[in-house]
């Protein structure tokens, strides 16, 4: 046999096989943390240059400009009652996964374990867990929550890559503070990308696609961005508010 006669070729074949497995992002022995093509950890601050009027202040009741709201959503939009939300313990409705990345504030991103990325938001003191193990987020879905169940996947590319997150099992929430709704059947797909900024700055871009068969006529796409901060000295947790 040729393989027996030429050990160099056998070795080359093994090296190539290993390279194929590695290049395709496989490697069952490496964790999601080890395979991370980009580093998302650290403190990040919202830099609000887009949708300012809908994010930095509470818009007027009844306004839903730029959101493809369905007919079914309109009665809810016009009936928004923040005091009723507060009384019912629903003051976190605008801090759910469908909108939390657009709420001005800071993120603290860490690895909870080798297969789970944790995103904490000081606005509304929310915590999101992004599970990399296939099926981990949906294996036994518990009760619906503001942040739902998130499955994460790395999308590596030469010299970098991206993080894709799909979230469902959500508690019904708001896309904006003034009560523009998304329902329990909504799905949130996010793409986390990073870019360098002048000096040693870093920018995090989160392209967010909310799809909801009930309250949206089409995908609602926004792309809030964040600047990297050196430390957590400006971290300032604040509880949810239904009015602000």
């Amino acid at each position: 046999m040729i393989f027996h006669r030429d050990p160099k070729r056998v070795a080359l074949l093994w090296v190539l096989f290993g390279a194929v497995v590695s290049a395709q992002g496989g490697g069952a022995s490496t964790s999601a943390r080890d395979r991370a093509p980009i580093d998302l950890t650290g403190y990040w601050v919202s830099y609000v240059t887009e949708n300012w009027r809908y994010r930095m202040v509470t818009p007027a009741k009844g306004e839903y400009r730029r959101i493809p709201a369905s007919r079914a959503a309109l009665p809810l939009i016009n009936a928004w009652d923040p005091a009723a939300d507060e009384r019912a313990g629903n003051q976190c409705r605008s801090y759910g996964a469908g909108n939390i990345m657009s709420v001005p504030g800071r993120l603290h991103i860490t690895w909870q374990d080798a297969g789970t990325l944790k995103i904490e938001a000081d606005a509304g003191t929310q915590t999101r867990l992004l599970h990399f193990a296939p099926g981990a987020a949906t294996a036994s879905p518990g009760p619906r929550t503001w942040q739902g169940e998130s499955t994460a996947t790395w999308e590596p590319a030469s010299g970098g890559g991206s993080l894709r997150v799909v979230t469902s099992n959500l508690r019904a929430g708001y896309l904006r503070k003034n009560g523009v709704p998304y329902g329990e059947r909504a799905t949130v797909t996010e793409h986390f990308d990073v870019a360098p900024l002048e000096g040693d700055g870093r920018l995090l871009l989160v392209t967010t696609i909310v799809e909801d068969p009930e309250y949206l006529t089409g995908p609602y796409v926004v792309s809030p961005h964040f600047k990297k901060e050196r430390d957590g000295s400006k971290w300032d947790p604040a509880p949810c508010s239904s009015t602000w």
Partner: protein
Amino acid sequence: MLIHLVARRTLGALLLVVLAASTASAQFDFAGSFAPVGTEDVQNDSVPVDYLGLALTDEARARALSYDESQKSMIERQCAGWGAAYLVLGPFGLRVTSQTDPVTNRVVSYTIGAWEDWNEMVIWMDDRPRPSDHALHTQAGFTVGRWEGGALVARTTHVKAGFIRKTGVPLTDQATIDWRIFRHGDLVTVLMVATDPVYLVEPEIVSKSFRLSRTPLDFRAGCVTGYEGREPGDSVPHFAPDRNPFADEFVKLYHLPREAVLGYLETLYPEYRKKIKDSYVPPPPCTESCGAAGNFVIKR
């Protein structure tokens, strides 16, 4: 002999797989038509004075407030068009073509097609050197790109002095614009980071998403000038910066803080929300002259 042949072919096939696997997601197909998604407010041109989301220098603010949109009725300014930043600030989609070297088949450039008031933009992908600083500056500028981490990364220089908002917020010819174009499935997101040493305190960062279109996008014919009531030799319409009659229009309409509407840096960070929390009163629901989505519309 047969075993030798099989082994060689196996090695060759594996090499091809390795090369393909390591480069498969390094680039994406940027040529095609991409329609604007339009669910994000990036144009900010519905009223004459709306500098929300900008970090302007005092000089920029003064110049912006001196701008009168009637300037566009002057025949020599009607077709001046808008600069490179209008790629993400304008309402149009992307019609992208690629140009290849006929010998090597490599992409030499991508061209983003023109719109009625925006010149086409060429992104050179062949590492060509930038022209001299003294070379001609144009509305589109000079753009060189490369692939990096799965994104198309490009930098535009040599822009003509112009605007970063259609409402007269200025940008100098020293400005640079860094682009990062991501593609996730059918969605293309264009990230713009515009830096201007004269008019911007911090870079203006705007991202806009487009969706792959199954049919080629429509395009508008080039601008044609016409008489709009201004005679040659008439003065250039303008305001004294402290007497712009529209300065407080947006402030009153939406109960917005004046410093936010006028583009002060501190208004871009979360701390600012805490500062205005106790003083801000949301506007009442729109009851007359409303847009289709419950927004206020000014009828002039």
